[in-house]
């Protein structure tokens, strides 16, 4: 069963305020260095990029490598000037992208 990513963005903020965003997604982050029961290497399968856009513009992104543990967690800060939508995207080695979004009201 696919688990939905967990995202924490404040519902509202003051103009110019620095807000914290937290995200957590379920992924096994298979390193490509482990062997299966048959002795063969289990192919690498990780989320290799995470990005966060605000109003269509990228405000945070990260490339990931096999040393990142399963279920990657990010916490970062963004300064917001106007109301809008955060768009989150996690892309894996097969090119599959999971997306999610959250709105914020800025006063």
């Amino acid at each position: 069963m696919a688990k939905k990513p967990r995202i924490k963005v404040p519902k509202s903020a003051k103009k110019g305020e620095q807000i914290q965003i937290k995200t957590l997604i379920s992924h096994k982050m298979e390193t490509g260095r482990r062997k299966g029961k048959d002795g063969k290497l289990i192919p690498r399968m990780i989320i290799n990029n995470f990005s966060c856009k605000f109003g269509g513009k990228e405000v945070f992104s990260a490339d990931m490598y096999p040393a990142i543990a399963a279920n990657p967690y990010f916490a970062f800060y963004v300064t917001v000037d106007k109301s809008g939508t955060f768009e989150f995207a996690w892309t894996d080695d097969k090119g599959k992208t999971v997306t999610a979004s959250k709105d914020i009201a800025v006063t």
Partner: protein
Amino acid sequence: MKRTIIRVTVAVGASVLLAACVAAAPKEKTALEKRLEDPRVKNYIVGEKMTGYVFATAATRTVQDDDFENPAFLWVDIGEENWSKVDGAAGKSCASCHGDAPDSMKGVGATYPKYSGETKKLMALQHRINWERENRMKAKPWKWESDEMLGMTAYVKLQSRGMPVNVKIDGPAKPFYEAGKKFYNQRRGMLDMACANCHVDYPATMIRSNLLSQGMPNGFPTYRLKWQKVGSLHRRFRGCNKQVRAAPYKQGTDEYTNLELFLMDRARDLPMETPSVRM
């Protein structure tokens, strides 16, 4: 002659000084003493009993303390979603009969495993959940270690978080408890060790890179960093059996359910901690 006296005086003086230094040198703290300096651990100690939270590292405790950072909540979310999802031929969800879980399931998780007069069996919460699915919803049972079962078990037990463990071990539950107790103290495996030989005899000592705990069950299902996922208490039993090179039982067997009852009684009065985070 005079010289000798001086020399002796110097020597005695030096050794007195040395002795004073040895006495004043701070004694190195044990790993447990260091853990106990963290004010957060006090809620996880009742008398002599301590949960695995106390033995965990500060970093692991921090991950557990924040419901957002704690990855076990990815599974709790699955449980919450399935709580109100209609499944099976009866066209019902858990919520159809039980309403909101935070009200109807409050305290329930702290009382399992529980003897059921209906089935004449000792049931772990997982057995109960599948019984509800099969008999009241006419839905397929979930596998013990599936995300669905782990999620629902964690979601139901979360509704008892902070409440004291409180299982019944008298009346019809007594024979199951006695069987669990026997299992706990029985030596087994190539290393010929009982559960008690580690978790009663040696807690707070290092076993390889682990600080050995009292082996308490109150935080399960747990997110284990080594597993990189949530796992059941019976999965942990399998691991602890294999560690002493004993043949493990299957999750959900009578042996492990009895053992779970014994352990929950051992943890009596400690707060429910599900979903915990451990190494």
